[in-house]
């Protein structure tokens, strides 16, 4: 070869090197700029998944914290809710580039390899900043405890509610003296209520919005009523499926009956119909700002105890400490301080409809004045949760697998009894399957030492 210079391989290597060096350079630039921008001594990076009204409330709480703690620079990043968030958090924790503080749904914690991708909280440090176990509903606190260590500090509880329009229910004589919906204690009573409401409601609308086609909502409703019936999922060791198909069938038939009796228009938009005059809708408490903003005369109770016992589906936003190899020191303490502060100043958060997890907040006069929050605050003590296993949690594998089955029953494309059997089969399969994060089944589960 007469020509001097590069051959192909050298060229490729050179270009590759340039690319890598370039990206590293940019990365270095990024972190440098961060440190320069904040004059504070301690920097706490905080990843969350709150957008919309929740996002604005969270930022207001962070700003209040910044004002009181000028020595701590809080750098918050809002990531897209759902799987992208969890994916990023997992990869960052595994790659040792995790932020000091993160937020997760409490139900997802067990599957997130606590001990490996998550670091435990220092309860003494939390107590120093004013948050103790005694300030929580014990069951809620314990959901964040795995192998005796606290991995998740709940910020709130968000629950499924029965929203009702007072103007419609008044006409149907379904409001009590206190201006709230009359109590319902059985499925018969519940369908009587629907029947009466239907007689006086605006024509052309459905009587109740049930999210009949939505696998998440249908799954949450199922969990609520299955818990009301006293149904359980697995034994304590997570070695055996205790799921009761008979109870499940009862719940599925109950949900289905709303459609067969004509109280639901499948596929009709739920919130919009409620705003337009439909008497009922079952929604998450995050719809409170929407309905309040629409200036409706409405109330909200936990899902009616039609099977005799109070229980409504509840999930929680919780603070977590993503795994950092060198966790500790001022930044770690800053993360504890920030989380403790937000937990204790969650009144603003309650405006988004969520029930603050820090119970002293609930007995403040300011909180008790909030309507309809003060009507459903009791849901804190009647939580229906998914089982504490790795495949559970908001938009997790369990909901993804069983949700569509509930929908198929409610929509009438499968018989409740056969769906209940299929659910049991799927639960058996899931219980035997291994958590891809650590290769453990639910029975072997827990934190990795």
């Amino acid at each position: 070869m007469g020509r001097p210079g590069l051959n192909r391989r050298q060229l490729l290597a050179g270009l590759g090197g340039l690319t890598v060096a370039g990206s590293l350079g940019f990365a270095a630039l990024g972190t440098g700029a961060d440190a320069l921008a904040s004059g504070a001594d301690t920097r706490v990076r905080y990843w969350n998944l709150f957008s919309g009204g929740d996002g604005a409330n969270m930022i207001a709480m962070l700003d209040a914290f910044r004002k009181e703690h000028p020595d701590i620079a809080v750098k918050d990043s809002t990531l897209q809710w759902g799987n992208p968030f969890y994916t990023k958090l997992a990869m960052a924790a595994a790659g040792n580039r995790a932020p000091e503080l993160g937020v997760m749904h409490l139900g997802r914690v067990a599957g997130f390899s606590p001990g490996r991708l998550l670091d435990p909280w220092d309860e003494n440090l939390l107590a120093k900043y004013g948050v103790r176990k005694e300030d929580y509903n014990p069951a809620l606190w314990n959901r964040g405890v795995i192998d005796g260590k606290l991995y998740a500090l709940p910020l709130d509880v968000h629950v499924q509610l029965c929203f009702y329009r007072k103007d419609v229910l008044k006409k149907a004589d379904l409001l009590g003296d206190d201006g709230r919906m009359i109590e319902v204690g059985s499925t018969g009573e519940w369908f009587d209520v629907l029947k009466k409401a239907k007689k006086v409601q605006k024509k052309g609308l459905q009587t109740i919005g049930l999210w009949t086609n939505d696998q998440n909502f249908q799954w949450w409703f199922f969990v609520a009523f299955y818990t009301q019936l006293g149904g359980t999922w697995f034994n304590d060791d997570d070695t055996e499926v205790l799921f009761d198909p008979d109870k499940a069938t009862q719940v599925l038939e109950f949900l289905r009956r709303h459609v067969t009796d004509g109280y639901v228009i499948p596929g009709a938009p739920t919130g919009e119909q409620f705003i337009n005059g439909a008497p009922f809708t079952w929604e998450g408490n995050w719809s409170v700002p929407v309905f309040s903003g629409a200036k409706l005369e409405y109330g909200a109770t936990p899902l009616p105890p039609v099977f005799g016992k109070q229980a409504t589906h509840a999930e929680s936003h919780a603070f977590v400490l993503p795994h950092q190899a060198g966790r500790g020191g001022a930044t770690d303490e800053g993360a504890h301080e920030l989380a403790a502060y937000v937990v204790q100043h969650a009144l603003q958060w309650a405006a988004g409809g969520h029930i603050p997890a820090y119970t002293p907040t609930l007995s403040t006069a300011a909180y008790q004045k909030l309507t309809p929050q003060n009507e459903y605050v009791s849901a804190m003590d009647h939580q229906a949760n998914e089982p504490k296993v790795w495949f559970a949690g908001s938009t997790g594998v369990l909901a993804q697998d069983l949700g569509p089955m509930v929908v198929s029953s409610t929509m009438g494309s499968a018989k409740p009894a056969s769906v209940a059997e299929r659910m049991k089969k799927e639960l058996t399969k899931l219980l035997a399957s291994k958590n891809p994060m650590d290769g453990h089944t639910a029975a072997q589960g827990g934190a990795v030492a």
Partner: protein
Amino acid sequence: MTTTSAETVIAPARAQSAAASATVRRKQGFQHGGWFVAPFLVLFALFVIWPLLRGIYLSFTDANISGEGANFVGLDNYREALKDSAMWDALGHSAYFTLLVVPCITVLAFFLAMLAHHIERGKWVWRLCFFAPFLLPSTVAANMWQWLFTQGIGLFNETFGLTTPWLTDKSYAMLAIVIETLWWTVGFSFLLYLAALQGIPGHLYEAAKLDGANAWHRMVHITLPMLRHITGLVVALQVLASLQLFDQAVVMMDFGPGPELATRSFVQYTLEQGFTSYRVGYASAMSIIFFVIIAAVALGRMVLLRNREEGAR
């Protein structure tokens, strides 16, 4: 006898010199062209070749999303996938979609092209109308149709006086996606047909007319046979594109799998396994399986075509 021996003597020499000049050309070609191709090659290697090889490797492991602690598990992922009824269901949805879309789009594109070709006035308006939707990003088109199909407020039901729950009933959901896809992508096939129509020499039609062939005969005996190759191309491209159904379906179904999983495509199920269940190894194995299926379809078409051409000869 003599001629053959002479040829055998000469031929190798000729071939040799030709081969030599080709290598010279090839060498020179890289030295000049290589620099131009290099930037592409780097990106191609980085974003196509490397991920592909990495994907094949991962498919033999139980890797999770965090990227650490992967064990070699041999063919376990493949064995599990082939027994996974949810995977076959998802493949069925992709196939069903393909089966609905391909014939519709081919026929529709042909008729639209005929229309645009034969209309005398305002030709460009028609071309623009039929092709314009194809220029929209898939998310925009899907989002728009989601609104059109929404029950109670959607323009589609309103216009046709229907109350069909397009997006929320499992028997209609896929049809809704098919309708959206037709509207959105027919422009591309339409353009191919239009170009082909313009390439048919006019004298064929004149001759046929002189022989007394009416419009129908001219279409069946001249237009269609002359468009045979382009039809093959349209069908092949559509099959490959339709099997990869993903973006419009997830957008129209609010990033879910549709009512009772009715619109969960193979690609979507793979994504769920990787990013909801965190099973990157398993998802990789499914991707490879899908790759094999797609490659088989493409190869099958090639073989079919070659046989047909040989038969025609």
